């Protein structure tokens, strides 16, 4: 079923997200800035996800604790979440009518 | 300030049905607030209903009774227009009392 496909893709994505080796503060800062920018765009589309904000907060916390590996990974996750929310908002501009009772 | 006690006492002739709703947080002491700190226990411990100077119903409550507690019971007798006295005391020593006319 689709679930299996989804899960394996998710696992692949997960591996991709966390296999970045020994990220430094600069990597983190770049990843964080990218995530913030994407989340800002989501805000302009009035479709931010709460999980993006939590992931950004997690990234910051890891960075404050000096763990830039985890901080960078979290920031990248936040960016992916923000991008998914942008994608959602954009595609829904037309697609909402599919659900309409008429 | 309005009373914390709302009472509805209705006589059917033979019996009087009593319903009461009380405004009280009924904090059990087991729930955490948004900061993750335990909310200290604060609940009504005893609630009494008196008719003609005699208790017709006494409730002993713990923190497991719902917020803004509700109770319903009935007793034999009780005439329309007579008064029912209702009082409570909580674990911090606060109290409230009211009288309600039987309808």
């Amino acid at each position: 079923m689709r679930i299996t496909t989804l899960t394996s893709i998710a696992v692949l994505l997960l591996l991709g997200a966390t296999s970045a080796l020994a990220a430094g503060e600069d990597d983190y800062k770049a990843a964080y800035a990218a995530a913030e920018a994407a989340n800002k765009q989501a805000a302009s589309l009035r479709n931010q996800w709460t999980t993006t904000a939590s992931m950004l907060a997690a990234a910051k916390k890891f960075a404050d604790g000096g763990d830039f590996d985890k901080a960078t990974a979290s920031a990248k996750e936040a960016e992916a979440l923000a991008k998914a929310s942008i994608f959602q908002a954009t595609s829904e501009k037309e697609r909402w009518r599919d659900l309409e009772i008429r | 300030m309005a009373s914390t006690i709302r009472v509805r006492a209705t006589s059917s002739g033979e019996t009087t049905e009593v319903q009461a709703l009380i405004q009280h947080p009924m904090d059990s002491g087991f729930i955490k607030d948004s900061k993750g700190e335990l909310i200290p226990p604060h609940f009504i411990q005893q609630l009494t209903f008196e008719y003609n100077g005699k208790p017709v119903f006494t409730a002993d409550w713990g923190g497991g009774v719902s917020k803004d507690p509700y109770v319903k019971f009935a007793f034999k007798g009780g005439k329309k227009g007579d008064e029912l006295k209702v009082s409570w005391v909580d674990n911090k020593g606060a109290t409230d009392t009211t009288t309600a006319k039987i309808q």
Partner: protein
Amino acid sequence: MTNTDNGFSATRRLILQGAGAVALVGLGNLPFGLAPAFAAANDKYPEEAFKQKSEADAIKSLYGKTAEVSDKVKMDAPEIAENGAVVPVSVTTTLADVTSISFLVAENPVALVASYKIPAGTMPSVANRIKMAKTSNVIVVVEAGGKLYSATKEVKVTVGGCGG
């Protein structure tokens, strides 16, 4: 079926307008620890029973004996509580000489929820709303003629979600 039916809203209206019928006699916070003036001496609050974790210990502390299951104790409680914070539970019994009725929730941190004293002339029937931490047996104990009788029902509790 709607809550706008006449009987009900008439009652509601009465309550609002009849606020004056409920006269406020006394109000105020007594200093901490002061015994309430109205509590009769024989109506001691069962402090210890409300500290017991298990229902068995609570019943023992409250009554000093154990209860036997009786089909004369009729409990009305939902199969699934709409919310654990407010679970309407009521009990009525055909047993004679009832002197007290108690409600317990086995899985709550404190099992005893409420204990009602039923003087002669008061009906052996009580309805109240209780909190349930999770799915649990609800136990009602009726003291009648010096003996204890009980009924038990499981109520399922779930929380949160996209309801309402």
